[in-house]
């Protein structure tokens, strides 16, 4: 079979959480699947230990991008200035480009959204200038798929404490152990009358599905896992897809176009893939990045599923404009690429009193409260609050010292020594109020290595997001004070473009084609065989880390496709 006449049942663009899960469901249902992933499959030691180039701190690069020159974006800041940005630079809004996607390096918080997260407009009304809307499906519709994601990917949680969303089955893994810091925070919350619990994490707290348990190392978020206890599609559904013998995974594949036939029906994709053997990532400084040679390929399929993250999924649909669809596939009602959301992350910092033990064990997040997700006076929505992951020393030095500590010299050094194990913070992902002007478009000037326009990111969130974020910041401070933190401080939030690792919203689901890009199953309106399967679908992005919702939607969408493919 030559490279130019590959024919599949389903082509999936992107091997992250959404695409990897879709591949597993569809291949096990008997379909022939081609997965095209822009990143590479990286070994642990390629994502292992560079504290200056990882997905928690991208000072000089990140630890998953191969060939960074092939991927740039144009970022338009709040003042209207354009910046050409590389993956590790501010404004790019990077999520990991690798097999497994962001879940290869994530912090593993695996939350179900709150039932009211699916009906934000009904509960709060739609503020002027915002595009706040209800989802076309409710929590009850997604609940069985949340359960399936928890079981098949592997989530550790607290059956008794975690009650913000009704559940009919327990977590498959016991919750992570409480830390002394978490116990101290629990007492502070109890004094305020706030309920807390150990949050759900997609981590093997004990051996599960043939892989070992977390060893509580001190890196965790931003890095791959040394014991493969960090769960995602890369170590569950994607290997299952491959083990059927019906799945082909091609890495380094940059999809440039979804193709349509003369009648406008989607029939495949065009892409570039490396003609040379794979290269290693640019993990540390020195020399020019490796440049693989790419060759042009195409493949055809009965179904195409786009799962490239909210920015690149929107870009690909825009790049796929045809004579029948001159504004891009799914852009019939001018929603494609709009309503970009991520999460504002208000954070309060404090110092543990002397004597509170902090063994600084990973993953680090051990206590949460969902008290402020909804029903907050004077603001729309809210956020889950939790403590933070283990923190690298250089990140602590950059962002977590009290603001009156000098930035250098003996006093700074002594503060690092005295305070590193006493620093603690509370933070929460604020449910953003979407704006139609926060968007992904095709840049009119800048082209990528393959001659196609790069993503242009512009606009800001709605002002109501900022109001909610500052309310949540005050609650985070309140929690630390009630716990007895020696000092508490935080930084006010301002209006900005928000997407990043939690990027969402650019292909919102809707029942009526006039109101969105896809139908309630993720099928692009007007295209019976084109689906979206990532955070792009989220009408709103919840006051929680969005990964488990991406997974649940992927199980649901893929099951729907499998029934008709």
């Amino acid at each position, binding site marked *: 079979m030559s490279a130019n006449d590959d024919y599949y049942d389903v082509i999936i663009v992107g091997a992250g959480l959404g695409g990897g899960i879709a591949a597993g469901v569809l291949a096990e249902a008997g379909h022939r699947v081609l997965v095209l992933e822009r990143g*590479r*499959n*990286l*070994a*642990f*030691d390629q994502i*292992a*230990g*560079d*504290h*200056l180039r990882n997905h928690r701190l991208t*000072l*000089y*690069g990140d630890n998953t991008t191969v060939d960074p020159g092939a991927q740039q974006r144009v970022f338009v800041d709040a003042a209207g200035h354009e910046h050409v940005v590389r993956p590790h630079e501010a404004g790019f809004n990077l999520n990991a480009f690798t*097999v497994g996607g962001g879940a290869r390096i994530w912090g593993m918080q695996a939350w179900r959204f709150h039932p009211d997260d699916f009906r934000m407009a009904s509960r709060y009304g739609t503020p002027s200038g915002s595009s706040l809307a209800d989802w076309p499906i409710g929590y009850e519709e997604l609940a069985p798929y949340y359960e399936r994601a928890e079981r098949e990917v592997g989530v550790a949680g607290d059956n008794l404490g975690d009650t913000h969303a009704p559940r009919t089955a327990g977590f498959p893994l016991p919750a992570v152990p409480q830390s002394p810091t978490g116990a101290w925070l629990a007492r502070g919350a109890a004094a305020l009358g706030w309920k807390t619990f150990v949050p759900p994490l997609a981590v093997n707290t004990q051996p599960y599905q*043939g*892989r*070992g*348990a977390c*060893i*509580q190392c*001190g*890196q965790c978020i931003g890095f791959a896992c*040394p*014991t*493969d206890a960090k769960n995602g599609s*890369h*170590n*569950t559904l*994607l*290997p*299952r897809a*491959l*083990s059927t013998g019906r799945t082909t*995974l*091609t*890495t380094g594949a940059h999809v440039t176009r979804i193709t349509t036939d003369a009648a406008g029906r989607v029939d495949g994709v065009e892409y570039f893939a*490396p003609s040379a053997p*794979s290269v290693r990532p640019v993990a*540390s*400084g*020195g*020399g020019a990045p490796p440049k693989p040679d790419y060759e042009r390929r195409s493949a055809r399929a009965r179904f195409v599923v786009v799962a490239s993250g909210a920015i690149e999924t929107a870009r690909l649909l825009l790049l796929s404009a045809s004579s029948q669809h001159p504004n891009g596939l799914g852009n019939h009602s001018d929603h494609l690429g709009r309503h970009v959301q991520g999460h504002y992350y208000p954070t309060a910092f404090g110092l543990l009193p002397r004597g509170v033990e902090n063994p*600084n064990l*990973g993953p680090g997040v051990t206590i949460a409260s969902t008290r402020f997700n909804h029903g907050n006076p004077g603001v729309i929505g809210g956020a889950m609050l939790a403590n933070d992951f283990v923190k*690298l*020393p*250089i990140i*602590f*030095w*950059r962002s977590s010292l009290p603001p009156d500590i000098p*930035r*250098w*010299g*003996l006093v700074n*050094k002594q503060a*690092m*020594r005295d305070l*590193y*194990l006493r620093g603690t913070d509370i933070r929460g992902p604020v449910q953003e109020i979407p704006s139609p002007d926060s968007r992904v478009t095709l840049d009119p000037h800048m082209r990528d290595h393959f001659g196609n326009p790069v993503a242009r990111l512009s606009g800001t969130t709605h002002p109501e997001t900022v109001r909610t974020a500052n309310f949540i910041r005050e609650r985070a401070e309140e929690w630390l004070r009630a716990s007895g933190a020696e000092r508490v401080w935080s930084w006010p939030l301002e209006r900005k473009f928000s997407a990043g690792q939690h990027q969402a919203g650019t292909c919102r689901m809707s029942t009526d084609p006039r109101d969105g890009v896809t139908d309630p199953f993720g099928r692009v309106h007007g295209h019976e065989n084109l689906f979206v399967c990532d955070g792009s679908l989220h009408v709103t992005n919840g006051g929680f880390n969005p990964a488990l919702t991406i997974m649940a939607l992927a199980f649901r969408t893929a099951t729907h496709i499998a029934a008709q493919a």
Partner: protein
Amino acid sequence: VTASVSFPDLPSAPFPLAILRALLDRLIPSEDGFPGAVDAGVENYLARQFAGSCAHEATRLARGLLQLDAESFARHGVPFVSLAPSRQDALLGDLEKGRAVSSWPVEVGPAAFFARMVDLAHEGFYSDPGNGGNREAISWRMIGYDPRLPSSATDHASKAAPNAASRSDSGAAANHFPG
């Protein structure tokens, strides 16, 4: 301390390594029992960065180091390395606030130069030893950080997960994941 990577020379002068060392010693001083930037090999980190990720900054920052010396001469008539530590700190505190008596090159403002050197010094001191500084994880031991990675993460992982079809590090499972 010997840098394993050499510093890039300026067109008209060698890289001002002595001035750099004197600056590093004030940014992160050594104390009894607690080594500072010089002991931890931060200059090795800088040499590697100037040959790699920070190559575009090397000349500008080297000029800044020469100007730091000129600033010392202008104020006290002696090179920076000869100043008493208290005077070095006072001078640096002024630069941090953008206060200088000598004329700094347009492309190297005193406050921006100083802030950049502060960042670089601490990156070298507190980041992983694989970046060239933080020799033997000196700073991590000082503050109580331990990455607790298995001595051979790959070996550990393959022992912990003998049946995992997903292991991509090595072994048969790699066949599932081309590229």
